[in-house]
């Protein structure tokens, strides 16, 4: 589980990097139409799920850290 938690942000970074690359190529050559491909749409859903999980994890860890910090102070 810990390993998965560590890998998730990197997977998100990889997916975001891919879409940034597609976006630049589409600007240069719109006929490539990389972002609107069927496979890209599936990748986009994966990216959204990863981003969502990563964000939730980040919020969870931040809140946990804050509560631990508050406990330590008291």
């Amino acid at each position: 589980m810990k390993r998965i938690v560590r890998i998730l942000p990197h997977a998100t970074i990889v997916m975001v990097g891919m879409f940034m690359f597609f976006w630049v190529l589409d600007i240069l050559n719109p006929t490539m139409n990389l972002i609107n491909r069927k496979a890209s749409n599936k990748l986009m859903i994966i990216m959204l799920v990863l981003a969502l999980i990563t964000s939730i994890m980040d919020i969870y860890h931040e809140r946990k850290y804050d509560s631990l910090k508050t406990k330590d102070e008291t």
Partner: protein
Amino acid sequence: MSKNKRMPVWGMIVTDTLLVCAAVGTFMLFDYVMPHSANTKGTVVAEVDSANKTSFALPKSGEKSGVTEDSVVSDDSTDDESSVSQDNDSPANSISEDSSRAEKKKKEHHEHTKENWYDNTDTDEYTADKNLVNNVLNADVQSERVVTYEGDDAVIYIDKKWFGEGDDKITYYSADIYVSSVDVLKTGLAKDTYGKNIKDSIFNMASENNAVFAVNGDFYGNSEEGIVVRNGIKYRDNLNDVDICVLFTNGEMKTYTYEEFDTEAVLAQGVWQAWCFGPMLLDGKGGVLDSFNTTTYLNSANPRSAIGYIEPGHYKIVTVDGRDPGYSKGATLSELAAIMADEGCTTAYNLDGGCSAMMVYEGELVNIPDRGREISDIIYIGG
């Protein structure tokens, strides 16, 4: 000492960057390179048979294309020996000369091609460059006939034309095509199969279809969107945001923006061919459009192919060589539009270009492409 030794930040950045590259490479390999047959035979949307065929008159034997003589060869150029039309030369001789030149060019293939890649600084993203258009329209175009084909169903005159000096020189091949009926102007698919990334060489496709003359098409297989109608068979009709060119069964050719294209209404008129690449270049009356549906990157000087319409049964296909300063720098869309207008076309449409821009006559290259590449479709005469 900690068991879970953390990777340094720079290592993490490098690893993630490499992973992005690997992911993009894998995606491109599977989705952009590997062929996927669509397993569809398409829907017949138009048929050209003896009952509904519109026949067009072919020019008589030895009669030259009036457009070529009147509007392209300048007064100056008629005095020039190099511009004298060479009808007497056999096509094979002319083409073999060009082939040897192509080989020579390949050997010394310049690295300077990339210097020209963005050489279109005066052109706005969507606006036609009036200076470039006027330069072409006022150019001293010289020409040399390289092919004369007079068949029962089609007459083809291919002229090699050039203008400009030094690194600004543009060389192109203009095929003046007369057909007896629209079904003589055919399209062929790579491996005779419709699908994504299915590619073949123009020579194989020309040979498989017994084509006398062939030129690259719109590379429909590179995209999942855009209307594709080939020889009256509709393979897909989902639109993207590119201009569309339609050849109707009555021999007329029209270009549309994607906004004005009403698929059902257009298909009802009898569509023989529909291409989705573009942009369209002329306004339907022979004038260069004020703006093109393209990007700065695609608008730069490159090898080009374009199809033009003069009247039903009379078409022009032009292939501009490029990326080879001194021989031909290639054409921007403004220049290509001006060339098509100069050729006497009322409607013209840009086909796939770059390495795809190839013209073949009787199995041999007519132009000198930039390396050449496998493509998904051709436009051809014969078979």
